[in-house]
């Protein structure tokens, strides 16, 4: 509670969360207020922003505002899902390895290190290019999550190993608490803020990864994400034709989200990390 209060007193955190939840709210509620249609053609290609179309149209004459709202939703969804997958997998493995120790820990560390040295973005490209048909948002998120869990595992493992040496774990044992209860009561609360930070970073990097693979044309089919908007704009010469509205807004959105998440993360680090807190 006190931590939360401290967080709320950190301007960086407040700014970050405000911006981030702002984007989430837009993604959730804008479709109710704005007629979002990413199918219908409403005008000529690359119509500049104007009264009818606040952000102009894309190369197929589709309303950019609609595309952005829909794309924002997709990107956040992919980010959340990828972050969730990476964080949950990484945390479970990290806690298990860090708390259990022994050969299980060695094995998990080995696997993690192995995955860490593999260039994940290349793997990402290979997997998504081998899936010729039916790349859904969830699948893309799954692929990103599956390549990104390693550094959460590593980070969480280190943390849980250091918490393991704290004396209250020993006290809990002599209080007769079982392993599960110790993990839940004595370790998880300490990791929670950390895991949450990892989750936020994983979400941010998930959004970026999605944008990156969409940028090179390996993004999801049948839907619109901020990355695919950028990709379409790039392929259809928005840049050369001066149609800035086709690529600047999605770029700004991605930057804003990632910066907001970074803000949140940095501010939380300041509050949660005792050494920095001093």
């Amino acid at each position, binding site marked *: 509670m006190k931590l939360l209060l401290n967080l709320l007193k950190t301007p960086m955190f407040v700014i970050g969360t405000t911006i981030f939840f702002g984007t989430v709210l837009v993604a959730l509620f804008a479709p109710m207020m704005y007629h979002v249609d990413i*199918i219908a*053609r409403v005008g*000529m*290609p*690359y119509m500049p922003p104007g009264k009818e179309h606040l952000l102009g149209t894309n*190369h*197929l*004459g589709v309303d950019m505002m609609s595309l952005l709202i829909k794309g924002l939703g997709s990107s956040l969804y992919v980010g959340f899902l990828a972050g969730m997958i990476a964080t949950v997998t990484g945390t479970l493995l990290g806690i298990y390895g860090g708390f259990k120790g022994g050969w299980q820990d060695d094995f998990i560390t080995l696997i993690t290190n192995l995955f860490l040295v593999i260039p994940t973005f290349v793997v990402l490209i290979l997997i998504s290019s081998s899936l*010729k*048909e039916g790349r859904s948002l969830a699948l893309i998120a799954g692929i990103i999550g599956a390549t*990104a869990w390693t*550094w959460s595992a590593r980070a969480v493992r280190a943390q849980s190993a250091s918490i393991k040496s704290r004396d209250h774990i020993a006290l809990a044992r002599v209080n007769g608490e079982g392993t599960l209860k110790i993990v839940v009561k004595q370790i998880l609360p300490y990791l929670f803020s950390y895991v949450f930070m990892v989750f936020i*970073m994983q979400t*941010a*990097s998930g959004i*970026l*990864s999605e*944008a*990156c693979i969409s*940028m090179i*044309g390996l993004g999801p*089919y*049948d839907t619109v994400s901020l990355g695919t908007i950028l990709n379409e704009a*790039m*392929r*259809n*010469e928005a*840049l*050369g*034709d*001066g149609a800035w509205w086709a*690529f600047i807004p999605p*770029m700004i959105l*991605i*930057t804003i989200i*990632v910066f907001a998440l*970074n803000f949140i993360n940095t501010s939380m680090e300041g509050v949660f990390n005792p050494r920095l807190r001093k």
Partner: protein
Amino acid sequence: MKHLSLLKFMVIGALSCGIISCQQKKPGTVTEEGFPREKTLYLAGFQWGDPNTFNPLSDWPAFPVGGKYNLMYEPLVVFNSITGKIEGLLADSPERTDSTISVKMNPMARWSDGKPLTSADVKFTFEIGKRFKGAPTAYVWDFISDITVDTVVDSSASGEMKLEKIVFFINKKERNNPLVVMDILQNIRIVPRHSIEALLAEAGGELAELQKLKFDKDPVVSGPYNLLRYSNEKIVLKRRDDYWGCMALYNNRLPQPVYIIHPIYKSNDHFSIALQQGNLDISATFIPRIWLKAKEGVATWYKKEPFFIPATIPMLQINTTRYPLSDRNVRRAMAYAINYKDIRELAVSGYSPPILSGLILPFGVEADYCNAEDIQKYGVSYDPEKARAIMKEAGYTSVFDADGKLNHVKNAKGEKVPTMSVKSPAGWSDWESMVQIAVKGMRAAGIDVREGFVDASLYWSCMPVGDFDLLMQKPVPEVTPSKPWSRFDAVMSSRNWKPEGEKMNENQGRYNNPSSKDYNPEVDNLLKRIPTLTDNEEKIKAYRQLNIIFMQDMPALPLAYLPEQFYEFSTRNWINFPTEENSYAPPQCLCYGAGTKALWEIKSVAAE
């Protein structure tokens, strides 16, 4: 940490975008080492991969040897798509009888080593195809049966002159197709007998051995330019100041550019940027919204829509052997479901005039065969209601999700109809957009089709064996005297019909299976008869008949009219390119077909 590197990636991306856009605004001429800009013409769009060989007898020689480029090796005649006339080059324009087509050789034609270019070279070039099945000229012997040479006396004002007359006999037994023979005269580039015969002897008389030679060191050519050097980045040609045509055809004038450089770009937008920066003078690639580039000095044939002269029809080829595409109703419903106006305005930047149903272009030389009444009666146009009605009538039920998205389609038996996909090369942005719009329309009309963008190599390998549901294609893109017959032939001919999995060079949709009960022999009859017709009324009648069958059966879905080749030029360094107002040559890149003559007419901006 990882997120930081990704952030950097974004920042770098943003910066590089900014840099590119800045560069585009910066005018100026870029001079390459040793090639004075005012004497160098940059053209691009023909060579995409690394240049391997310049051997005119190999299968895929690099620019400007393969294809219909007239810079190094020349054909007998060229076709001017603007006038519809065949113009002379190594020979004068052909004369046609019922069984022969003949041309008279230009007596002034010379090889670059000074030897005269004679009928012997022509005969040699064609007869290589008779001797070797692997030669590029092998196919011509399906269409001609013999070549003979006579000497005729030409008595013009300047006095009497002995000329060689080459007579091509139409192969009545095999294909009996004078139209293709006409095409052949401008398709086959003549090679020097004296040098190649020697090389062939050195190669032990084996063509395969000869084909291994690269011909990249001062080859013997007849054209106005010769190869200077090449790399993976560009091909450089240098003007031949002793080109025979300067005297014979151009009043002793030289082509303006001393050098022609073909830079090798990898992606469509590079061409656009290079044109706008003035680093490229002519391009043959799709550049969207060309009117926006006018301020950078980029222009094309017309100043307003459709900008280009329509000459070809990109279409969705349909595999008619696969269910449910084997059902004519489904094909017709698809044709009704496509929003052709959106394709015209969005996908091809308005470069296409409004499309009419059928396989005949309602313009230029083909306009005669196009019949408005027939199209009114049998043709299709964008009408989603009609599309739905056809599907319903044919017993199909489309099942939609709550949010209005098509889920699947059931047939009359209640079985789920397989989802169809449209194969198209990934990254070809104009085609991608056409496919997107077509698919959008079909899905809205309750037809279960999806986009299937694939790697270009996969696309090319799937095409001849028919491994597709629908395939984005542009059959016979070149403008030739045989149009529109060759287009019908490419889409509908069952002459070599083979089942899916085996190669077919035409009709890859496997339309009109000769062994099926629905076989319509009239199609092949008409395709066989039209080339031999000389009477215009007869021809019109035959074409009308063929077009009606096409419109009824819809073996393919034409989407738009596009030019033979995109032709964009930049006036930053060179001016006086052929345009609508200044139509001294057809809208072709200055290396191609009848467009080559513009090389003598363009003017360097610096020299003005």
